[in-house]
């Protein structure tokens, strides 16, 4: 295997190809082997790319992690609970922005309740409390609630993408993808 000829001819040929001085016979010989081996290399690369392309299907059967949440005008200042059940998300609007809060308590993963009178989220499991911004202010929760990626579609609709999270303690809440400015 190791001592087969092609590599030998090949190297000598490429060198020769760089140096056009030589008799006709030699030149044509050189040309054909270069053409042949280049085509062969292209074929191998092609097969490789076939495998690579094959790994990326044209459609996905994964459950949808993004959902449409209407237009910004649908939301008044405050907390909207309409997507809590289905998607585990609160849509919160304040005077300048709209953002999507995760409904998972950062303590042990329970689902807090929204108390409109107190303007806070209160976790029924261990009493962690969060402001409507998601910042934790009471109870054992170690960090603020997470926010999800939120953006406006081309049609002006709000899209919430749960695949991407933003954590306040990592300083990610200033990320433009974590909020919609209104």
């Amino acid at each position, binding site marked *: 295997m190791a001592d087969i*000829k092609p590599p*030998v*001819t090949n190297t*000598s040929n490429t*060198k*020769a190809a760089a140096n056009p001085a030589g008799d006709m*016979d*030699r030149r*044509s*010989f050189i040309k*054909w*082997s270069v*053409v*042949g*081996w280049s*085509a*062969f290399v*292209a*074929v191998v690369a*092609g*097969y490789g*790319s*076939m495998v*690579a*392309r094959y790994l*990326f299907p*044209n*459609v996905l*059967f994964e459950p949808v992690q993004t959902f449409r949440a209407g237009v910004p005008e649908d939301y008044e200042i405050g907390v909207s609970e309409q997507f809590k059940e289905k998607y585990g998300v609160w849509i919160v609007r304040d005077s300048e922005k709209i953002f999507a809060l995760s409904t998972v308590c950062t303590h042990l993963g329970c689902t807090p309740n929204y108390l409109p009178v107190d303007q806070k989220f209160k976790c029924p499991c261990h009493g962690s409390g969060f402001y409507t911004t998601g910042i934790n202010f009471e109870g054992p929760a*170690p960090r603020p609630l997470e926010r999800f990626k939120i953006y406006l579609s*081309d*049609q*002006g609709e709000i899209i919430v993408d749960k695949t991407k999270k933003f954590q306040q303690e990592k300083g990610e809440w200033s990320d433009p993808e974590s909020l919609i400015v209104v």
Partner: protein
Amino acid sequence: MSLPPLPPESYYDPKKLDKIFAFVAIALLLSLIALFAKDYSRPWKDYQRQFHALEIEKARVKLDQLQLDLSNNEEHQRVLKDLKAAQVNLRQQSSQQEAINRQMRAAEIIQKIHTKESQFAKAQYGALKYRYEKAVHEFSPDAAQLKSQWDALAANIENLRLSIESDDTSIKSANDALALLQKDVKELEKQRAGFAKKGEIIEHRLKKIDPMRMSAANQLADMVRDLPFLELANPNYKIRQIVLKDIPEDVNFMRAQRVDRCTTCHLGIDNPDFVNAPQPLTAHPHPELFMSKNSPHPLDQFGCTTCHRGRGRGTDFISAAHTPQDEEQKTKWEKKYGWVELHHWDQPMLPASLTQAGCFKCHENQTVIKTAEKLNLGLHLIERGGCYNCHTIKKYQGWSKSGPNLEFIASKSTKEWAYHWIDDPKSIRPNTWMPSFFHQTNTSDPLSMKRSQQEIHSIVEYLFANSKPFALDSAVPSGDAKKGKELAASLGCLACHNVGAQPGLDEGPQGRGGHAEPVRTRDSLRREFGPSLVGLGSKTTLNWLYQWLKDPTKYHPDTRMPSLRLSDQEAADIAAYLIQDKSPIVDKPIPVVDDKVLDGIVLDFLKKSSMVSESESKVKKMSRQDKLVFAGKRLIREYGCYGCHQIPGFENEKPVGTELTEEGSKDVERLDFGFVNIEHNKEAWFKQKLMNPRIFDQGRVLEPLDKAKMPNFDFTPQEAEVITTALMGFVKDRPSPSKMADQGVKAAFINEGAKTIRQLNCQACHIIDGEGGGIQSTVTDKSFSPPNLFAEGQKVQPQWLFEFLHAPTPIRPWLQVRMPTYNFHASQINSIIKYFNYLDNQEFPFTDIYHPLLSSEELTAAQKMFSKDYFDCTHCHIVGNKLPAGTPDNWAPNFALAAKRLKPEWIVKWITNPQDFLSGTKMPTYYDPKNFDASAPGDILGGDAKRQIRVLRDYLLTISEHPLQVKQAVSAPEKAEDKTLDIHAR
């Protein structure tokens, strides 16, 4: 550098090998390129490109229009001008702005540092707290020290918080100053944005799709992103799909998720802008029903193949199993798409003409599937035709038999009439629903004709021989036919029956054999609910008819014919009138009984169960009568007569026809197309079968008993098609319950009630839920037709309705049309009551008992409003026994009934705006809905419209049979006695 010398062992010339190698390698490379090309070129990409171009064009046009509008909008121009001025103004103050900005930035930096420190301190605080807690828990000596550290940290945090707050204040003040400077610009900018918003959304979109508006880099991206291989990342053109787990596909004993990729090509389907775009980019023709998020069938929840069928996973024209709706479309498709039928797929797309079949599987329980008119008609035809009598259909389990009761036939008819009727019912009554069993394409040869005659003889003989005795009243008062005709027209008989050529019925369906064929509609079908009465005089006797009209249940306890509470004279008059219509055909002679042929028939049956010799000797021993009765019984069983008629001796027989509950899912391979040259698909077969049930015997050599026996209903091609639509809808795959049309108990009650209403044909007279009332065409003045039952649930009290349905009492005595007394089961009444209440979303069964209460001031006010000077209520309304002055066509129901009949809340709504409930009602609108308060009479109760109406209502409720004797306060209504409302009926 030098070439290696040719090894002596070499056989081939290496140069030659190199050449061959090169050729082969190139060939291989080319094959690979072809492979990529094949994989890359997919038909849907072309459509997506088309759509892309169209989308850009439409957006451009829209944007241009918007901008044109804006430039013409003066307000907008003014804002722009002001904005410019304000910006110039602001720029002049730039040094000031800059100073504030600098100040703010500095403060922000300080705050950031403070925040960071505070953040660190807080984190330490938390960690320290844990350590402290743990130390305390473990009785560690470090606790005290930790505590002091912790306290120190807490103080530090508090300090930091103060500094952050003070930083905040300075930032805020700077911010405020800045905002003040920029106030005008900001405000105007906001206004400008308001104007531009619509356009900006389109522009934003255009920037993404329109190469003309893209940056150079994006233009490049636009070109490159769909190249082979690169398109894996982020292509413009990609397959779209909707995955539906709760409307699964039936995969033989398993259910698999449904995957619809139709929107890959039908890109404009949910975009109203594409209504007129070419296929496949066209928008759906019914966006109000499908597609959009607010419609009952949003695209992402119902997909496409749920209704249309076809192969949702298919991504090209053929593999999606499109089905052409006719020859013309087929040839067109063959040319355009190279269409061929997709084999190996059981559920091809429904052709456009049958699309409504797709509704059935989720809407099965509904009696009327709103907007699916074709399907409704098909179902109605199945009901009226009584298909379910012979073919089990789950939906119609428990429905009563369609034909008349034949248990007492001898008391009603003659053998001669029966012979002619069975032989060819349409010759006696062209518009009858009795289908034809004889003279069909497979029984029209001379031999079969002869046999048919003997078969009919046998059937008639069996029926009469087994007929049970029935006593008729012999005394019939002499009737006046002319009066009878008037009565039949005015009492409402014509709602369900067809009586010869009646005036006002000309447009009704009649004369079907060979004459011009009027199109059947659901309205006309309701008018055909009862049997046609043409040629009744030949069929029965005056005595029987009189008896029947007086009390139908006496002859047939389960009949759907209600009692009209006719007096003896009325019954006699109508009977005299109806008996006049005689059919001449009945007088034709009847072929004689031919023993030889009869023997053949009997033998055919006998041979089935015993040996030939034995059978023959048996036949010899039988008398002619025996043979006739024997053959008659077997023939009734063969033809399945007992499906529609009650016949003695067949009480427990199973229906003869194939079950149709899942007919739409039937494998085409299981249908016998014989020698008939039609498309080999289900719909063609159904249609053909319906138009001529015997056609598939064509060209076949068959024993008499092996022939097809389904009778002929003479369906027109249109009717056959609508019935086919319904049949195609009877499929076995079902969505999960969450996707069914009717969920919850209320919907089930509504469906149940609607079914009862359909079974009793209430809608022949009444308009219920927006349809029916066909009788109105026979009533000259609309004011005299039966009432529209719109919002009946809101209007009447359940208890009253129960009593009324049980024993109707006239509400509108001026009407001649009579609400009949039905032979109801209590459960049927209850289902009707629940229907009306749930349809109107009423609280049911519990309602508050309302006690009207009027102060003396209010009482006078009410009386005043009642009087001629104001609303003049008694001008139209009957009060107790006092009739209004005008002609009956202006009369209105009795006020004395109101307290028991009407719901108090309804009266208020009714007075407020009658047109809301019943547009076109004669009840005047006293209060202008647009100008409510102002339209109230100002001099009563301070012109408070709401109070006036309430007072009127309360006054109304105090009116009893004795007019205008008002009680100050009415005691609770007396207890319902025996006829309590059965709220637990189901």
